[in-house]
């Protein structure tokens, strides 16, 4: 057989490599399946390429995954919607492989295709596919079947619908737990397509079976169904059928089931409405907040704000707040941490007075927690409280704790505080800031840990931006420049770092009058590190200051440095000199 023509050669290779031994080449070909399809034309794609793919579904998972994805958008390449059904066979065989991610991708693609198919095609080819999978010999096929019922069901005849419902019910009772799990997790999706008359009669029966399953793993997926089904049912049905299940689940023997309830409960509240929330779900939630398994308390504590949002403040104060107080001194640090990450959000819900009365002590105790994550979680949400209780109170009660944290043993905590200082500053205002935090900012600049010093320098820049150059001139610059005489070269280096960050904010005048003399002085430092940092700094100052200053002061200083005995100093000095020449050349 003759070789194919030269221009076709690349595509010919692409096609051949569909069956290459090297997985990378096969993958490459599969990813360009649309190119191959265009080269073959619509008809041959339908008659040759697609059957070819169906027959060769025993490839590596990666290849199959790519194939499943490509086929999902393949309708245009087989000739449009009326031929969409030809794509079903290869996807059907991909739905039966044992690798979950391949099956899920194939299901995605099937759903995409199914939702575009004409109703007659749906009945003729999609529904039989669902039935075949559901009757599959191996569990993988039956697991997959559960995920596409909702696509098949819409647009079916009544007879077929009845059949599909009973098939689904069989899947809910399958002897393999994997299949029951798939049925449980897809029940909500399927239920959205089922007519309301059958919802109560049939879907709820399946649901009830699943909630009584002896496998924990099935029951906990049924919990998810509660919220989905609850939203579909009429409120009174929801109260009658779903509520008892939720309440039961919240007292399930298995902590994993209770954990799921704790995660889902606020959604369920929306489904059952405020009255039942008050009478039934609040007690259930309170139980979960006091659960003896820490994992459950973590989940419950993390939802406390969302849950309170659904309640009126009185209820929240009466029922939830006592639990929150207990949780704030929980024995598990993870519980406290989860609580700390959301508790600030309760301030707007409870309002000013209750926040001051009830929440503030909790904030304070969490701010003093021995576990850094807990403290951090509180600090990072301070602004939410500020809006409610106002700056005065915040500063009186919380600030001492924050100041304490600013000197925390753990540098990560200090770092977090520094990052919030500009935010605090903007909220507290100039006057307040000067009193309490100004000194700290300077202290951080001399921290033992580099990250803190670096963050402190950055902080100065952000403060200068916040309060303006004049304020900075008064409150920051003198203190920073004083440090240039520090005996430790690392601290002297921080001065240079601070200058390089602040100079652009402060502007040309202050830079020339205040910073430049200090920098020039530093170029005579005995430590080479300082000197080459001076060179780098001078380079960064060039665009800020006037050309005359560059020529007069900076160039001379750099020329001196370029004759330094240290090779690194000379290198950076020369770099800076080059950049002066570069800018001059550009200007001229």
């Amino acid at each position, binding site marked *: 057989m003759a070789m194919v023509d030269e221009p076709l050669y690349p595509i010919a290779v692409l096609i051949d490599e569909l069956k290459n031994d090297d997985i990378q080449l096969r993958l490459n070909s599969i990813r360009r399946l649309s190119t191959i399809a265009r080269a*073959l034309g619509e008809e041959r794609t339908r008659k040759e390429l697609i059957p070819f793919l169906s027959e060769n579904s025993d490839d590596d998972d990666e290849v199959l995954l790519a194939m499943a994805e490509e086929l999902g958008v393949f309708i245009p390449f087989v000739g449009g919607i009326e031929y969409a059904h030809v794509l079903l066979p290869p996807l059907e065989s991909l739905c039966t492989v044992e690798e979950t991610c391949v099956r899920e991708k194939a299901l995605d693609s099937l759903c995409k295709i199914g939702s575009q198919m004409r109703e007659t095609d749906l009945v003729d080819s999609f529904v039989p596919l669902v039935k075949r999978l559901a009757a599959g010999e191996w569990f993988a096929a039956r697991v997959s079947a559960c995920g596409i019922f909702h696509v098949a069901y819409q647009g079916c005849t009544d007879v077929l619908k009845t059949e599909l419902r009973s098939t689904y019910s069989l899947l809910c009772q399958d002897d393999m737990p994997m299949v029951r799990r798939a049925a449980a997790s897809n029940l909500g999706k399927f239920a959205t397509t089922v007519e309301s008359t059958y919802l109560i009669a049939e879907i709820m029966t399946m649901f009830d079976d699943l909630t009584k399953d002896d496998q924990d793993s099935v029951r906990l997926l049924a919990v998810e169904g509660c919220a989905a089904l609850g939203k579909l049912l009429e409120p009174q049905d929801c109260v009658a059928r779903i509520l008892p299940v939720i309440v039961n689940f919240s007292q399930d023997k298995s902590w994993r089931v209770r954990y799921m309830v704790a995660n889902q409960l606020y959604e369920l509240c929306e489904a059952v409405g405020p009255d039942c929330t008050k009478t039934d779900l609040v007690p259930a939630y309170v139980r979960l907040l006091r659960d003896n398994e820490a*994992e459950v308390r973590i989940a419950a504590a993390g939802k406390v704000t969302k849950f309170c949002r659904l309640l009126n403040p009185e209820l929240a104060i009466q029922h939830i707040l006592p639990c929150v107080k207990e949780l704030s001194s929980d024995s598990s640090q993870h519980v406290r941490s989860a609580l700390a990450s959301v508790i600030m959000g309760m301030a707007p819900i409870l309002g000013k007075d209750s926040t001051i009365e009830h929440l503030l002590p909790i904030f304070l105790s969490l701010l003093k927690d021995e576990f850094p994550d807990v403290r951090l979680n509180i600090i990072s949400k301070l602004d939410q409280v500020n809006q409610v209780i106002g700056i005065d109170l915040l500063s009186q009660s919380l600030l001492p704790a924050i100041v304490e944290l600013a000197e925390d043993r753990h540098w990560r905590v200090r770092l977090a505080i520094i990052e919030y200082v500009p935010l605090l500053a903007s909220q507290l205002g100039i006057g307040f800031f000067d009193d309490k935090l100004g000194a700290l900012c300077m202290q951080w600049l001399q921290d033992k840990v580099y990250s803190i010093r670096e963050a402190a320098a950055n902080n100065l820049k952000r403060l200068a931006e916040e309060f303006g150059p004049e304020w900075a001139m008064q409150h920051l610059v003198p203190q920073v420049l004083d440090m240039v005489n520090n005996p430790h070269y690392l601290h002297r280096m921080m001065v240079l770092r601070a200058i390089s960050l602040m100079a652009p904010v402060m502007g040309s005048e202050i830079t020339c009058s205040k910073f430049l003399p200090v920098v020039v002085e530093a170029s005579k430092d005995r430590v080479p590190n300082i000197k080459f940092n001076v060179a780098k700094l001078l380079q960064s100052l060039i665009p800020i200051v006037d050309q005359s200053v560059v020529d007069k002061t900076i160039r001379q200083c750099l020329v001196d440095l370029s004759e330094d005995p240290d090779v690194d100093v000379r290198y950076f000095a020369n770099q800076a000199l080059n950049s002066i020449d570069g800018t001059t050349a550009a200007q001229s």
Partner: protein
Amino acid sequence: MNGGDEVGGSGELPQPLDWRFSQVFGERSAGEEVQEVDIISAIEFDKSGDHLATGDRGGRVVLFERTDSKNASGARRDLEGTDYSLRHPEFRYKTEFQSHEPEFDYLKSLEIEEKINKIRWSQTANGALFLLSTNDKTIKFWKVQDKKIKKICDINTDSSRTLGNGSVASSSNSKTTNACLTNGGLPDKVNNSLSNDFSLPPGGIPLLRLPVVITTHETSPVARCRRVYTHAHDYHINSISNNSDGETFISADDLRINLWNLEISNQSFNIVDVKPANMEDLTEVITSAEFHPTHCNTLAYSSSKGSIRLIDLRQSALCDSHSKLFEDTETPSSRSFFTEIIASVSDIKFAKEGRYILSRDYMTLKLWDINMDSGPVSTFQVHEYLRPKLCDLYENDSIFDKFECCLSGDGLRVASGSYSNLFRVFGVSPGSTETTTLEASKNPMRRQVTTPSRPSRSLSSITRAVRRGAAESPGVDGNANSFDHTTKLLHLAWHPTENSIACAAANSLYMYYA
């Protein structure tokens, strides 16, 4: 809870079994040296009993399949059905693969042996077999599937070449490599030409052909490692066990038990941790762990102090407190230096329906009812004649040998190994006196004990507690004085549905039926 476990049932006693030799794999010829790497270190039947896996010290897993059932890898319904003909099970070699390789942990300067510690079969799916195998540190999930041998021909670029499927036909390797090389550089070209406004005619290009795959009828089993679960154990893994939910399994080392999801290999959850804050306070280690066969939230683990703990995963995330504790409270008549050492449980197994647990310590097999935590239902002496020799056994370290145990599928009998390649089968039905000693050889009944004495009731224990084997006169167990501590039968497995035992004597696998 009870169902198929007939231990507690009344009625007629089953007849003692008449054991016969069935098969041997890897039999040693006289004088042949046993290679260390060939010594079998794990045996396990799958749920249907159609397959048997062995692991060895060389890190290999060997699979055997049953030849007498209609269709070994057939339909699921066939596998689930267990209605077999009257013939005894016969197996043939199916395939083998290298599961683990020797490794070196550079951080801890530790060699990691390739020896397979345990094999557990997982759920069969899509006609393929799945199993977990573990060495001291790493668990692997294997899929073994019969693959049809395929040939690919009719290639666009050069039709004279016929590429064999690389995994099967090694003879075509050289050609394959060539093909890879020539094609390997091309993706760039493809991208270039396709992006250079290479326009395709609307009707397609008739010259292009898809590769033709010719499927032959020959199949060959191919093993592929699907997942590797690692970096979760500081100590040596002694057990792995699948959960009945089909999605999780546990792995146990000396101090911890971890829970894994089969599909997630990069995280596991610690569910039991017996490591004391100070290692000097360590008094007890985990020796074996197993999930309940049907209750997905129950598992049992045994300890070096001779206790078995049942834990309920529903209670809490970290199950430090057991829900039930089984200890033999009966104080041994004579305490000695060895009392604690020989109390260590080397293996536990749940009976099929999960009501009974069989445990093996150095000298005895004990059967426990999980509804009765006051003491074992019965105790069987495996090699009581060795008691005077404990001192010798301690000196040559044999006292630390870990014998496995197994139960028959009907729960009527139990078996465990001993020295001199002997193993013993006991009837556990109340009143049963069945006690058989077999030797792992072609003539298993050579040392058969014909007159087991009446079981002597131990006075202190509750009514059903039975102690057997102890009353036998020393020396009845064959040449008691000349027992050979180097030929020990540590590993054995009972067929799940039939009276058939597979046991390992060094590198040989012997199979018996009754």
